[in-house]
Structure formats: structure tokens, C-alpha cells
């Protein structure tokens, strides 16, 4: 049976979004499947979690979780032959530097293209070819503040010893010589082969030598961190009767019903954000909360008390993996017995990297777009559809 309600997106700030025709909900089109997220939070009612926890932990996504490295090295390390040939010329990696966007210098290597977001002094000293960035520059004194340097390291002009290579090497040695913190992920399929212990028999294609730097900072795998919180107010996740996201005509009544639906969707989004505060859910949504209305009049609409389980995965999580993980979860929820399936809902909040100078499709980002490529998904109970909230607008091209 087709899942109901294809909700289309609007131009507002946070808006419920499309379902892909394949039935797998995703706010991200194919370009974004190269994207990475720092943290994924999954929330379920504890009752449902207890039933499916074993199957969830042994689902395909969690059995082979993605791994990443946290390297501390100067930028010139990527130009060393072992790294350069293994990962830049032949493999496919993602390298993100730690640093606040538009405040410090940040580096990002994805798909073989090295991008640096630099301030004026560093740019002029480095002597590399770049252009003023679209964001972070203002009129007058602020006019030439930030520069974006984009170098395609996979192109043939960048071979060890070539002119461009040497220019980059000189810049790295003089200007970027301070060791930086990088997050590194190897995307190529031969990933496993490269990191196998030497005792395994060699495969038909000889595994390339692992660059020394990766041995220095061993891989970390993403392990789920499971917490549960009891006595939390949970809304029923049912839209108000007669309200609908679109359609119904131009009459005042139809307009009212559309506005009521939109307000409800935003309230649910607000509720999810209160539930997922970093350490524990907000005090306002605890069942035993009684606050003077002078301080806060927030109340959860038609709420019942329940306990919630949160599964937190943090590290460098690929978007493809997130997609598969959600698919696995939905499969497990569908397999629940009839009476439990009616009440089952699940939410997933995917955080984004705030400080990356370029978004996943290669478009520039500014520091005022604070959430990176973050989105929230919620599977509504009782054969409801999946709602997706995606933040649009902000400083990105």
C-alpha cells in the first residue's frame, strides 16, 4: 500500500518536505548523498525500542558502522607521496579541518578538490590562485576579508614535482605549517583492504601501503550510545482534525485549516528540538514540570506520559549510511505486531557541519548558515507518513 501524503516543500525556513518516489523518504537528492554529518540522533518510545533493540543492533547498518580518523597534522602531510598517491590521485577521501568558518582558516578536501577558506593576510602570503568568497565580505572596510582557493588536486597539473604542486607545497610549508585537526574518512571501496592487518594473504590487487599518519591516529568506528529518559510528555503526533497541508480551495476556512496544519508541524518540530537538547530533554516537557506561567507558558498539546529512548551516533557519518539506517529502522517498525505498530513513531535528527566552507554540491556557504546540511525526519504513528523538516535559505548559494 502506498504511503500516504506527499507533502511538498515551501520556501519557508523550516518546512516539511517531499517523499522520494521510491518510497524512501529523503530530503536530499542524489548530489547530497556525498554529504557527511557529525551526529545522528534517533528517538523512539522505550516500549518500541525494547522490542526491536536486538534486531536494531544487529541490522546491516549497525553491524558495519562507518569509521573515520581524527588526524592532527600539518596540511603538507597530504602532499607526501604515500598519502597523495593513495588517497588523492587514486582513492576518494573526505578531509575536513576543524575551525570556525569565516573566523579561522579552514580546509576541506572532497572529491579530489582542495578548498581553502582563508583570510586576507594568509591568502596573500600563500600566493595561490583564488577568488573573494561570496559570503563573509561586506562593503567598505570589510570588502576583501575572505578568500576561497579551489585546487583540483586530481588534475594532471598536480603531479609530484610539477610547478603547481611545488607552489602548493611551498605555501603549505611557509604559511600552513601549523598542525591542524582534521576529520578523515576514506570513501573508496577498497577501504577495508587498506586497513587490514598484514597477516592476511594478499589479494589479487596488492593493497597500497597505508600512509604513516593513519597508523598514528587509528580509526574510530561509530558506536551507538543509548540513553533513555522516563516520564516525558509525548504528544500524539496527530494533526488537528480537518487540517491539511495543502489544497481545499481559496476560502477563508480552507486557509484557516492550512494555517492550523502548518502551526502544528512547527510545534512538533519545536517539541523534537526540546526533546533532543544535548544532555537530556528540556524541563518543560517533563511530566512533573510545574512552572509559573509568568516564566513560561509552553505546554505540549494532547500529551501523554511515556518514556523515550535516544540512540546517538556521533563521528563522521555518511549520508548514504544514514539513509540505509533509516530504511532498516522502518523495516523493523513495519514488522511489529499490529497493536504495537499503531502506536509506533520514530524520529531522527541529523546534524550538520556548521563550519564547512563549501556545501555538498560544491556551492559556497557562509558562516551565518548555522546548521550545515541538517534535517529532521519523523515517522508518524498509525500508518502516517514520514515528515521531513529541512532548513532552507541562509547564506548558501
Amino acid at each position, binding site marked *: 500500500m502506498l504511503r500516504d501524503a506527499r507533502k511538498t516543500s515551501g520556501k519557508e525556513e523550516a518546512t516539511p518536505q517531499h517523499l522520494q518516489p521510491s518510497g524512501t523518504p529523503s530530503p536530499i537528492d542524489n548530489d547530497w548523498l556525498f554529504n557527511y554529518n557529525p551526529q545522528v540522533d534517533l528517538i523512539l518510545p522505550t516500549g518500541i525500542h525494547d522490542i526491536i533493540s536486538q534486531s536494531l543492533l544487529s541490522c546491516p547498518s549497525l553491524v558495519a558502522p562507518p569509521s573515520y580518523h581524527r588526524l592532527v597534522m600539518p596540511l603538507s602531510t597530504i602532499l607526501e607521496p604515500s598519502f597523495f598517491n593513495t588517497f588523492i590521485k587514486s582513492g576518494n577521501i573526505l578531509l575536513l579541518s576543524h575551525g570556525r568558518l569565516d573566523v579561522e582558516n579552514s580546509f576541506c578536501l572532497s572529491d579530489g578538490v582542495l578548498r581553502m577558506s582563508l583570510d586576507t593576510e594568509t591568502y596573500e602570503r600563500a600566493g595561490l590562485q583564488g577568488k573573494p568568497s561570496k559570503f563573509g565580505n561586506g562593503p567598505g572596510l570589510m570588502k576583501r576579508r575572505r578568500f576561497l582557493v579551489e585546487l583540483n588536486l586530481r588534475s594532471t597539473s598536480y603531479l609530484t614535482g610539477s610547478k603547481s604542486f611545488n607552489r602548493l607545497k611551498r605555501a603549505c610549508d611557509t604559511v600552513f605549517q601549523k598542525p591542524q585537526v582534521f576529520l578523515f574518512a576514506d570513501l573508496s571501496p577498497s577501504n577495508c583492504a587498506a586497513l587490514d592487518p598484514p597477516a592476511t594473504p594478499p589479494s589479487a590487487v596488492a593493497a597500497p601501503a597505508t600512509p604513516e599518519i593513519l597508523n598514528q591516529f587509528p580509526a574510530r568506528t561509530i558506536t551507538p550510545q543509548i540513553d533513555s529518559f522516563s516520564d516525558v510528555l509525548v504528544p500524539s503526533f496527530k494533526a488537528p482534525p480537518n487540517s491539511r497541508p495543502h489544497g481545499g480551495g481559496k476560502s477563508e476556512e480552507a486557509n*484557516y485549516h492550512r*494555517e*492550523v496544519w502548518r*502551526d502544528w508541524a512547527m510545534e512538533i518540530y519545536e517539541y523534537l528540538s526540546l526533546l533532543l537538547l544535548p544532555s537530556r530533554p528540556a524541563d518543560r516537557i517533563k511530566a512533573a514540570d510545574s512552572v509559573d*506561567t*509568568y516564566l513560561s*507558558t509552553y505546554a505540549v498539546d494532547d500529551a501523554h506520559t511515556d518514556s523515550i529512548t535516544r540512540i546517538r551516533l556521533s563521528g563522521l557519518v555518511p549520508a548514504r549510511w544514514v539513509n540505509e539506517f533509516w530504511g532498516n529502522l522502518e523495516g523493523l517498525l513495519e514488522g511489529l505486531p499490529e497493536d504495537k505498530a499503531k502506536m509506533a513513531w520514530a524520529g531522527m535528527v541529523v546534524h550538520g557541519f556548521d563550519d564547512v566552507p563549501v556545501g555538498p554540491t560544491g556551492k559556497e556557504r557562509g558562516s551565518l548558515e548555522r546548521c550545515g546540511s541538517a534535517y529532521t525526519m519523523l515517522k508518524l504513528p498509525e500508518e502516517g507518513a514520514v515528515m521531513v523538516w529541512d532548513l532552507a535559505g541562509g547564506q548558501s548559494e
Partner: protein
Amino acid sequence: TKSPVGYTTVAFTTIISGKLPSQLPPPPVLPTHNSLKLLTRCTLVLTDHSQNHRLTALSDLYSILALRPTSEKLLLQACSSLECDLISLDFSTRLPFPLKHKTVGAALLRGISIEICYSASITDVTARRNLIQNAAELIRVTRGGRGVILSSEARQVLALRAPEDVINLAVLWGLSSEKARDAVSGRCRVVVRQAEMRRKAYKGVV
């Protein structure tokens, strides 16, 4: 003919709160005036749910019936099911509940207007502060002041203000000037007409 006061229609309000006596208080006898139209009006303060079945009897006695709910549940009931012409909240004190678009919008759909009374703020500073805050919130919740009317609830003539002054006051609270003018003149006329129709006209299918 333009009246010296600036208004053409005036309603005299009787405020009733608490339990309604079995003999409903009759409206005051109004003198006739050649340029002003005088109406009687009742503002019923809703404190519990038990009085609601007598609303039809009350609205037969007075030309306009306004309800003043004191809690969120009563506001929801007044907006969605009770029969009245206006909903008038006491804006001179801090509202203990937040106003929501869902409840207020339901009232507007049924044709009920929301009233802001400004006379309490003329003398009392705290009332003025609360009035500005509550009026701004109401205007935000009704998405730009749709279905809002303004009136004074003056007990003495000193608390009355001319229509242009009231319009300026509404603009201060956040209404646009056309909406503010509409709140003082157009919408009020609509309310008076609707009240008259409800009592005198009969809807039927031919």
C-alpha cells in the same frame, strides 16, 4: 448628520459575572436621541461551564452579547461552540494563558469578533503596560488584526476618546492604519448588524 462626539452608535454595557440570577437583570431604559443610535449590551464573565445554557435567554434581552472567558478552556469553548456576538478579554491584566491562532481563528471563522477595550489604560500605568502587550499579541495571533474591534469600556466620560485617537492608538499596537480604521468603524458596524440579524432574522430553506 455628524454627531458632536464623533460616534454614531453607542452601546451601554452591563457586566455580569458569576452565577446568573434566575431572574435575568433587565437592560437599562435608554433615552432616544436624534443623532446617536443607542444599544444595550451585556458582557458576561465566564467563570464556569454551568451557565452556558442560558445564553440564548440573555441574548434576547440585550442587543449585543459579549463573553469574557477567564481560562483557556473557556476561551476555546467560547470560540468554537458558544453563541455570542463578541469575545472580549480583559486586557488590562496579564492573561494567564497564551493566545493561540487555532482558537482565535476558529472564532473568526464563525463570524465572532474579538474586542479590545482601552479605557482601563487611560489612568492606570500597569493596565496600560498589560494592554499594549496583550493587544500586540492578539494582533499577532489574528495575523494582522483580522476580526478585531476596539471599544472603550469607559465608566466615566473622561475615559472616552475620539475615533481618530483610537485609530492612532491601534496603529501604535501594531495594526496597519486601514485595519485600525476598520476596527473602529467598519467591523463594529458589521457586529451590530450581525447581532440584529441573529435576533430578528430567520434562516430557512425555501
